[in-house]
């Protein structure tokens, strides 16, 4: 008897490993851009995420509520980023500060080359990754959708590669699906599509292309209804993963009938 695959209780994704730890959700949510902590809490819960990103800045005595307390209360893993760093030196220092602040060796490594596009600075990114791996960090680099750079980051010892779909916050979707496919094909560490996601179909496409996960922030936090979009993203990631595993049909130029011509009557 065929295995039943339509049971709604059956998980549509399988557990996966990232950085030597076992995870259930394949959606990582950035906490940037939410209009309030309560709105963020509702969205994080709807997303089903287990990992959220946070940043470090000079303390603001007027800040209301504690972000870290909220994340701890929800039982989520806090992944610090190095957002705003333009050099390997600044990113490495920020990672060390984040390790002190959050008591984690994990870092989402961002080294930005240009403030208009926020695209990664490849040489600085690779240099920072090499240093942080040597310092014992679990490095998750935000990178260009460049298969060669992704391979270099993996060779440097990064725990994953996180190619962009499009510039941060652009919501432009996956601009070069071929490059993502090439990165996925070559990588033996998890590939997480990070940045550029605008709506649910973008997240589903990333997973259909073979990504192991999706990291997004603005698409949820700046949506008109963040909690509703978070749920949409959760389902999109699950659907894209399931479709990838299910094996899609090839694209054809011409039609292929799904109804046989055998037994067609002559009615003329």
């Amino acid at each position, binding site marked *: 008897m065929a295995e039943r695959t339509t049971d709604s209780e059956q998980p549509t994704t399988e557990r996966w490993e990232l950085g030597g730890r076992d995870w259930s959700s394949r959606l990582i949510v*950035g906490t940037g851009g*939410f209009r309030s902590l309560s709105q*963020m809490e509702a969205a994080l819960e709807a997303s089903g995420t287990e990992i959220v990103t946070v940043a470090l*800045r000079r*303390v603001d005595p007027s800040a209301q509520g*504690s972000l870290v307390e909220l994340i701890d209360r929800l039982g989520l893993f806090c992944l610090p980023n190095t*957002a705003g760093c333009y050099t390997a030196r600044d990113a490495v220092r920020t990672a060390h500060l984040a390790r*002190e*602040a959050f008591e984690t060796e994990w870092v989402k490594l961002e080294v930005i080359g240009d403030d208009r596009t926020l695209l990664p600075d490849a040489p600085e990114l690779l240099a920072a990754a090499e240093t942080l791996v040597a310092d014992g960090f679990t490095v998750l680099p935000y990178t260009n959708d460049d298969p060669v750079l992704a391979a270099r980051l993996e060779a440097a010892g990064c725990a994953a590669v996180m190619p962009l779909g499009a510039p941060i*916050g652009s919501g432009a979707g996956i601009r070069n699906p071929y490059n993502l496919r090439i990165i996925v094909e070559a990588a033996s560490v998890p590939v997480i599509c990070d940045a550029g996601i605008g709506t649910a179909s973008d997240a589903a496409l990333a997973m259909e292309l073979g990504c192991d996960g999706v990291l997004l922030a603005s698409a949820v936090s700046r949506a008109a209804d963040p909690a509703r979009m978070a749920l949409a993203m959760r389902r999109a990631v699950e659907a894209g993963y399931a479709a990838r595993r299910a094996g899609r049909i090839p694209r054809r130029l011409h039609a292929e009938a799904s109804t046989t011509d055998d037994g067609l009557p002559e009615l003329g």
Partner: protein
Amino acid sequence: MTVELNGAPLVLAPRTTVAAVVASTGAGGGRRGVAVAVDGEVVPRSAWGTTELSDGQRIEVLGAIQGG
């Protein structure tokens, strides 16, 4: 003595510790999500109480904020 805290001058009594400066920012001594650098070097949390500041040093007290 005068130090620089998060980019602004601050007059302190001699031998003020990092822990006292962190407390003065409202960031909370034991709380997770706070990190300190003095003259660009990370000061581990375990050393905040024993690290005394000296005139002219630059102190950065950082806390968690929302970020992608």
